[in-house]
């Protein structure tokens, strides 16, 4: 593709993003996302999961834009309760509490909120611009991948998530493999062979398999509500005093361009690593701002630089997490796993097509994020500063409403013959997800398996067809060097933790 062609597609995407009703969905998505992010205990993945069924009647491009706008809005929304109540709406906003809440306590709540809105939107804006500029390079990389590589990249994603996240690696891999396994229920797309359909045992057959959207709703909405229902402390009891001024907050962000840019790119870089996500990136960016400061003692006591670092990296993560999601179908976070589910639900396959036939959709998504950041700035500066009440909503009121939304949404996922199957799937997976969370089994690895199962199996089948059924296609350094490198990387990730102590010991003895 030439530069002129790329530019033409970009302008087409701009036209789509500003056309009606797309622009309306961006506004709706951002507002819904901000409210969901600001409510204690809720976050982007839950918000996107309960929105998934509602996107069914929409055009694919509008559906994905709505979802990504909810994601962007919720990432910002999490900061509101963090600043006003010391109760972050999402864990990604936990670093925001360190300096945001002390600022509120000393009468600078409005300034802190305006710093949050300005830093979030500016960092979100320039990281997405970077993503657009990077896309020609991404296209080249993505096109180098064929079926064997796509199968291996799914395994690599699972391995990375289990290594990077805290907890037992085997738990993560088992969860991921279980997720992959349940996608094999139903008729295969390539061999038209029914599998595990229980035709004789059930009153209906499982020919269409288990709906991965129902699984997502169960894991992110129902399991989260079960968990929240067992915990006190969702109610923000503090009293918000909205004092201070908005303008100094904007000036403060603009007077710290280095922190803003550095933290935004830290967010973007870490966001691109599967499993790392915004929780990690905000802490890394915050730590870096403390390290680079001449006055590290003032951090945690209302230092504006700390707040700028946390908030800019938070929204910078969004652009980064879209890189592996759109390029390889490997989500960088739970929210992008739901986004990936949305893409597949609307017939959009991550990978080369997102950067060739679907490039206009991909660019529309990026432009929607840019527009979304402008909306965040406007809403953050002029609306949120007057509506702190949403942060004080009791979780006891949220739980039944979310359960209703989740189950009613599941009802409409597929045709009438699958309705009750999907509803029971949501409830069952809610229960399984609750216990998986309780015992530290990676939910992202499980979701990744469920969402990627179809793609991974199709690519495994194609690879085995290419090799005449031989698995050696994955370890052939001469003919499939990229596959070989991926296998080595997976092996390194899995065996690394075992050999690391021996290597460290050997090096220490030298």
């Amino acid at each position, binding site marked *: 593709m030439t530069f002129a062609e790329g530019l033409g597609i970009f302008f087409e995407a701009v036209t789509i993003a500003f056309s009606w009703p797309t622009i309306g969905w961006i506004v709706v998505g951002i507002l819904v996302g901000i409210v969901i992010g600001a409510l204690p205990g809720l976050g982007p993945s839950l918000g996107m999961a309960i929105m998934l069924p509602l996107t069914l009647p929409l055009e694919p491009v509008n559906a994905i834009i709505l979802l990504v706008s909810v994601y962007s809005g919720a990432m910002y929304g999490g900061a509101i309760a963090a600043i006003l109540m010391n109760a972050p709406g999402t864990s990604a906003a*936990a670093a925001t509490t*360190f300096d945001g809440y002390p600022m509120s306590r000393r009468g600078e709540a409005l300034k802190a909120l305006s710093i949050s809105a300005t830093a979030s939107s500016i960092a979100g804006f320039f990281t997405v611009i970077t993503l657009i500029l990077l896309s020609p390079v991404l296209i080249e990389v993505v096109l180098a991948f064929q079926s064997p590589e796509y199968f291996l990249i799914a395994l690599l994603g699972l391995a990375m998530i289990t290594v990077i996240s805290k907890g037992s690696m085997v738990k993560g891999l088992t969860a991921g493999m279980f997720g992959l396994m349940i996608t094999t229920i139903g008729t295969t797309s390539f061999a038209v062979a029914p*599998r595990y359909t229980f035709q004789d045992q059930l009153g209906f057959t499982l020919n269409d398999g288990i709906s991965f959207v129902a699984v997502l709703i169960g894991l992110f909405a129902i399991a989260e509500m079960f968990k929240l229902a067992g915990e006190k402390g969702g109610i923000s009891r503090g009293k918000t005093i909205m004092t201070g001024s908005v303008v100094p907050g904007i000036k403060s962000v603009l007077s710290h361009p280095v922190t803003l840019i550095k933290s935004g790119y830290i967010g973007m870089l870490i966001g691109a690593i599967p499993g790392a996500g915004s929780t990690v990136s905000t802490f890394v960016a915050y730590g870096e701002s403390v390290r680079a400061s001449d006055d590290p003692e003032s951090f945690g006591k209302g230092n504006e630089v700390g707040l700028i670092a946390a908030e800019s990296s938070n929204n910078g993560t969004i652009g980064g997490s879209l890189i592996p999601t759109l390029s390889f179908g490997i989500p960088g*976070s739970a929210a992008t796993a739901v986004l990936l589910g949305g893409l597949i639900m609307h017939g959009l396959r991550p990978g080369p097509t997102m950067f060739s036939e679907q490039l206009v959709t991909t660019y529309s998504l990026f432009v929607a994020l840019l527009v979304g950041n402008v909306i965040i700035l406007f809403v953050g500066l002029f609306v949120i500063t007057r509506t702190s009440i949403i942060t004080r909503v009791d979780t006891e*009121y949220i739980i039944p409403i979310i359960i*209703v939304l989740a*189950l009613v949404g599941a009802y*409409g996922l597929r045709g009438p013959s699958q309705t009750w199957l999907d509803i029971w799937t949501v409830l069952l997976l809610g229960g399984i997800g609750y216990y998986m969370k309780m015992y530290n089994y990676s939910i992202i690895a499980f979701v990744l398996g469920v969402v990627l199962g179809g793609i991974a199996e199709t690519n495994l089948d194609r690879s085995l067809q290419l090799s005449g059924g031989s698995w050696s296609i994955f370890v052939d350094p001469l003919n499939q060097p990229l596959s070989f490198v991926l296998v080595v990387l997976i092996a390194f990730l899995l065996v690394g933790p075992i050999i690391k102590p021996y290597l460290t010991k050997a090096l220490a003895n030298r």
Partner: protein
Amino acid sequence: MNVQTVREKVTMEHGLLVMFLGVAVYMFIESYTFGERAAAFPRFTAGATIVGALLLLFRSYLPGPVQKLVVESDGAFDDVADEELVESDDATGETDAEPEPDEPAADAETATETRYVDLKWLTMHGSQFTAIISLLFVVVSYLIGMLWAAPLFVATYLGVLRRPWYTVVGLSVIAFLLAYSFVLVLGIGIDGGVVLDLGRFL
């Protein structure tokens, strides 16, 4: 080891792993009834799930190096996050990146107080109560339709938790309107059940 000791040591995690193992063993065996192409992927994933579940079930008996893979460990970025988290009092449970806590929730719950629901004749864990009432919501939805069951569910939930009557009524109405918005947007037939069909009143 007597029966009581075994019972004390068995947790819901064992139940979860036995479920993983049972499903995987069934799917592995059943895969031999499929053609070769259709069997490759389910056999691979079921095999890997069986190995993982067995390793986790018998983790106490594993040799040292293999045990390293099974036991809980810090994530790659946790040094930074942990240092900063010490200063945070009030982080919530929602995670974007799912950084898992080191210990099972039984220990993690020391950070957040457990919520119990008092049903006068019985005190129940909040999660357990929510799961049971959600199950009832689905059953009642099957009987009378989800559109009508939704406000009943919300009213019952909040009523049991003894919330003020105006919030019970207000949120029940909101639940009905939300369910009705799904009817309008998705055109789903949730206004009638197998026992009662109130759809004609709409």
